[in-house]
């Protein structure tokens, strides 16, 4: 199975652990990801705040430069995933905008026909295109005894996803049950992490982060699994400041779902980007699953 790969800016550095673990587990599962040559930023939410057409044209450039051999694209970051999907849909449904976006693309010698590329999330690819048997077949280290909080965030499950429930999604729950983990009931699993509010309205952002951390603590999760770089950054990097703000003592490791998937596949934790999180995840993994390096292939 071959897919075009759009890593997105966060995966280059601040969420390098996501990029590494995505590539590592994809290799084990036989999913070939080919990075789009010279992709540009999706603009996150910031371009849409300023100019709808520029935002859409900037995003559409990425769809337009995908090599013709691909009809599907994988984007692990929630914002990238949504923006690419949203733009493809806009071009399909809104003829005047489609014409304008293509006119802008033409200035760069490009064009894009809506519907040419199907934008996918890796979670969807793993659960839908591969499924339970294919995943279970690769498990080297079952995750029995580990309690995980599956955190989906917003922009993968809403508003366009089509592969899971927009308010109480279950695909990541299913995946980690296949791997033997105890997946907690996590009522806030698709609540907002605050997004860029950590930059512009700290008290509000901190409250949203607090709810997510407290939810994991209340249900005795050992760690929270993320599928978005912004969620991971907000919950992990701001955890100390959130604790100071509320007088709590949170120490909840926040990792990407692909990192734990890699552990279940017996991969070396260093290949999966462990150690980059601010609240260390290895101690609890070692406590619950035993030495990680020893069995690594």
């Amino acid at each position: 199975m071959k897919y075009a790969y759009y890593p997105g800016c966060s995966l280059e550095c601040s969420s390098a652990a996501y990029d590494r673990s995505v590539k590592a587990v994809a290799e084990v599962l036989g999913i070939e990801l080919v990075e789009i040559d010279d992709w540009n930023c999706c603009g996150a939410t910031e371009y849409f705040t300023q100019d709808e057409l520029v935002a859409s044209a900037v995003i559409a450039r990425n769809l337009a430069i995908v090599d013709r051999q691909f009809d599907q694209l994988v984007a692990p970051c929630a914002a990238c995933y949504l923006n690419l999907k949203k733009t493809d849909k806009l071009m399909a449904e809104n003829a005047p905008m489609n014409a304008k976006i293509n006119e802008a693309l033409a200035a760069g010698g490009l064009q894009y026909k809506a519907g040419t590329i199907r934008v996918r999330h890796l979670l969807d690819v793993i659960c839908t295109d591969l499924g339970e048997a294919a995943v279970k077949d690769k498990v080297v280290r079952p995750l029995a005894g580990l309690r995980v909080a599956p955190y989906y965030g917003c922009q993968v499950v809403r508003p366009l996803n089509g592969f899971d429930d927009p308010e109480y999604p279950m695909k990541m729950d299913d995946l980690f049950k296949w791997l033997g983990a105890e997946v907690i009931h996590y009522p806030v699993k698709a609540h907002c992490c605050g997004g860029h509010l950590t930059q512009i309205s700290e008290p509000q952002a901190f409250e949203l982060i607090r709810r997510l951390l407290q939810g994991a603590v209340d249900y005795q999760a050992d760690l929270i699994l993320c599928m978005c770089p912004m969620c991971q950054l907000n919950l992990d990097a701001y955890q100390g400041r959130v604790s100071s703000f509320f007088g709590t003592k949170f120490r909840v490791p926040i990792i990407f779902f692909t990192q734990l998937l890699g552990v279940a596949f017996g991969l070396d934790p260093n290949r999966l980007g462990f150690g980059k999180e601010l609240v260390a995840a290895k101690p609890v993994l070692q406590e619950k699953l035993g030495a990680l390096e020893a069995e690594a292939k």
Partner: protein
Amino acid sequence: MVTQLGQRRGSAFLAEVIEATPGGERIVHCLQCGSCGGSCPNGADMQHTPRTLFAMINADRREAVLAANTMWFCVSCYLCTVRCPQNIPITEIMYALKRISIREKKYKGTDGPALARTFTKLVEKYGRSFEFGLASKFYFLNKPLAMLKMGPMGLSLFIRGRMSLKPTKIRQLDQLHAIIAKAREIGGAS
């Protein structure tokens, strides 16, 4: 047709909002049920919830709407959008209101526009987002004191190799610039 919808209701601003939002014509179907404000994670901090804002748009209260903090507390989580029984693209309407508010400098007491401007300027310079550049420039220009609080976190990220001091540039920056320039040229004000 769009303008007619707004005019029929006697609100020029309604017509303007519809024009500025893809799928925005659904706004006329608002039932004033309040699912949006009740679902919003930041609803309690909004001066007016989206429901109220839509009533104000209907009443042509342009200035008050554009000065509201509502859209600046919208983080695009889309919960209101998926819950709206009338399928109004509420998050997209928030974006449209942000755009008009920025264009006419009507916003008050928010760093949202500065963040958006700093972010997109960097993207236009390099073709990719540059997190260190964004954080340092945004905080330095808008809230230098907050930099002190951010320092330790930034350092922790840097030590773990999660903060690069150097941006990555795409090769075909000229192409991206040509696309952006053309989009600005044909897009007009929206």
